[in-house]
């Protein structure tokens, strides 16, 4: 396989990495809100969050993307490809991350929260200063796992017209008719990216404040 083809794949990986990174970040923020809603005593917050998670975990990402890209125009929102891709991936990963974070929040030792109550924290300060950092520590490995999963799922965003690694590989395979070589190279590129994420995750875990050294 020529260097030229390989470099096309590498160029396409910019989309894979870019869209995944942005979606993971946005998804995380949404997931924080969702998990807070899940743990809220009020059904008014909890029920919609449960439904959100059920839907975005239950329906295949491919279908979600098609719906966002092709149904939003019917209500007058003609979103560009990249926006549709980021919305779809963010909402999907948010659903998974929220479930992880819920587990984390539930395992924050109650005593640490009581200690914060005792020194006068407001509920919001307790959330931001105590619950989030500790839940994050507890769920960090699971979140990194989810990041790798969504990175691999990003191959589906081609359905809204973005040529990322997998789509580029399919295009190249169909014009050169050398699918084995091209898909092997694509696999290698994914592997390198995922390994980098896993390594970064392990480093991040170790450098979280107060981690046992």
């Amino acid at each position, binding site marked *: 396989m020529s260097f030229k083809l390989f470099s096309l794949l590498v160029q396409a990986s910019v989309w894979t990495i870019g869209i995944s990174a942005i979606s993971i970040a946005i998804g995380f923020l949404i997931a924080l809100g969702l998990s807070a809603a899940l743990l809220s005593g009020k059904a008014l917050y909890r029920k919609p969050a449960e439904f959100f998670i*059920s*839907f975005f*975990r*239950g*329906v*295949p*990402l*491919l*279908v979600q993307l*098609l*719906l966002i890209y*092709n149904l939003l125009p*019917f209500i007058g929102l003609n979103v560009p490809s990249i926006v549709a891709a980021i919305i779809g991936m963010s909402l999907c990963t948010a659903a*998974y991350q929220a*479930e992880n974070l819920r*587990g984390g929040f539930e395992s924050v030792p109650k005593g640490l929260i009581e200690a914060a109550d005792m020194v006068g924290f407001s509920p919001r300060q307790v959330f931001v200063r105590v619950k989030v950092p500790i839940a994050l520590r507890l769920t960090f490995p*699971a979140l990194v*796992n989810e990041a*790798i*999963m969504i990175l*691999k799922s990003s*191959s589906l965003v081609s359905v809204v017209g973005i040529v990322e690694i*997998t789509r580029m*590989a399919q295009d190249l395979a169909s014009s050169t008719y050398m*699918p*084995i070589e091209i*898909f*092997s190279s*694509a*696999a290698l590129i*994914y*592997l390198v990216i*995922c*390994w980098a994420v*896993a390594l970064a995750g392990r480093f991040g875990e170790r450098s979280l404040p107060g981690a046992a050294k």
Partner: protein
Amino acid sequence: MIFDPNVILKHLPEIISGTGVTLALWIAGMLLGILIGFIVATLRRYGGRAVDLPLGFVVEVLRGTPFLIQIFLVYYGGPFVGLSLDPVPCGLLGLSVYAAAYYSEIFRAGYASVPHGHVEAGECLGLSRLQIIRRILLPEMALIVLPPSVNLAVILLKESAVLSIITVPELTTTVSAIGSQEYAFLEAIFLLAVIYWVIVEAAARLGRLAETRLSTFRFAAS
């Protein structure tokens, strides 16, 4: 927009058979994956570095590359190295190996979650290693292993759609074929969304049920 529900009714038998194939492959692949994953995790725990490192490498490769590409390479590349499999066995093998890589990590965490003292108590009483695994480690880790396993099952169900590229007649293949045959893409998307959602919701509920069962049985309030 055009939406014609008759398309769905007309092809009901194919849709049901596609759903059946997906369910069968998914469940079989998952069970095999759990079994292989458990064996891998156990070998990695007790086999020393010489076993742990190479297995760890394989697990990372399987986790680090998309299932679509793995299955493509095995099915279409396999014959070049003398491995020519039929679509369904190839799909089942691919799905269970992919699942095993992830399950092995879940079990690894499960092993780590059992306090070492519980193992030592077994050793002191003369239990053999196998007895310790079977009677102490496995039942004790069950509750910790369950939620991520359900999560993974959901992911596997969706990944099973990838088997369409090796001509396995599963749900996504069947429904999208109906879509392109009838030029009824919207109906196809809608149908896929609903069927997958129903299966995932059922799996999630089953998982939650198992979790409550296990936890009430084991940690009854004092």
